[in-house]
């Protein structure tokens, strides 16, 4: 049993995290850059790198990132992969989750009632993971 006690694992390059490689030098996976679980009331229940949730209205939210999303070169990017899932609406309606927009600092998420382009609904659990 061995334990490495450190405060920080620091990269040698600005804005580029350390890479995880196998013995052949092939990169094996990347850490997610942000995640959040929040209730339909925009209350954050758990998160990483999310400073706040803006409630734009029923079923309409902006996730605001604490640190800007960056690509593999360390440059701020609007091309992150934002994956959004929902669990149950607060009023029992069926909804589908959409990612309306993605920028380096925020992403807008919307949950529309199935087959009704004018009606959004809040959901009891919203989960988002972000990679870039």
């Amino acid at each position, binding site marked *: 049993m061995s334990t490495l006690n450190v405060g920080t694992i620091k990269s040698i390059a600005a804005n580029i995290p350390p890479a995880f490689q196998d013995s052949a030098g092939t990169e094996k996976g*990347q*850490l997610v850059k942000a995640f959040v679980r929040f209730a339909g009331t925009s209350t954050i229940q758990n998160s990483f790198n999310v400073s706040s949730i803006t409630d734009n209205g029923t079923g309409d939210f902006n996730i605001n990132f604490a640190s800007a999303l960056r690509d593999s070169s360390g440059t701020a990017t609007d*091309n992150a992969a934002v994956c959004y899932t929902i669990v149950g609406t607060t009023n029992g309606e069926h909804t589908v989750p959409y990612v309306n927009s993605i920028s380096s600092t925020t992403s807008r998420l919307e949950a529309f009632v199935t087959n009704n382009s004018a009606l959004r609904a809040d959901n009891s659990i919203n989960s988002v993971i972000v990679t870039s």
Partner: protein
Amino acid sequence: MSTLKVNTIQNTSAAHSSTPEQIEQGRAKAWINFDGTGTVAIQDNFNVSSITDNGTGNYTITYTNAMSDANYSAVLSYNIQSVNDRVCGTDSSNYLTTSMRVTIEDATQAYGNGRADCNRICVAIFGDQ
């Protein structure tokens, strides 16, 4: 080349402990953001070598380095569409170590009917590699 072999990594206050397995399993082994309209365009990715356009709303994502098995987890999302009856689909018969198929389905019809292209599809893959 040096290798640090430990069972646990934690902060100097002995909190926020992680095992190497947790860190390994917690990493996305592949991810992609792509535009599936017209000529399919990859916006950014990790460990994706190509996207094959199989037809309307039907794409195959091929990994640069394969997964160890086909039991990995794929998390998907897509941009808002003009109608709200679209859902992401994955075809289990095309859920392979080297690639997976993603479709944008019409939830009101049988699987494979009424598919639509989408201008932004995001996928993240977690599992053994």
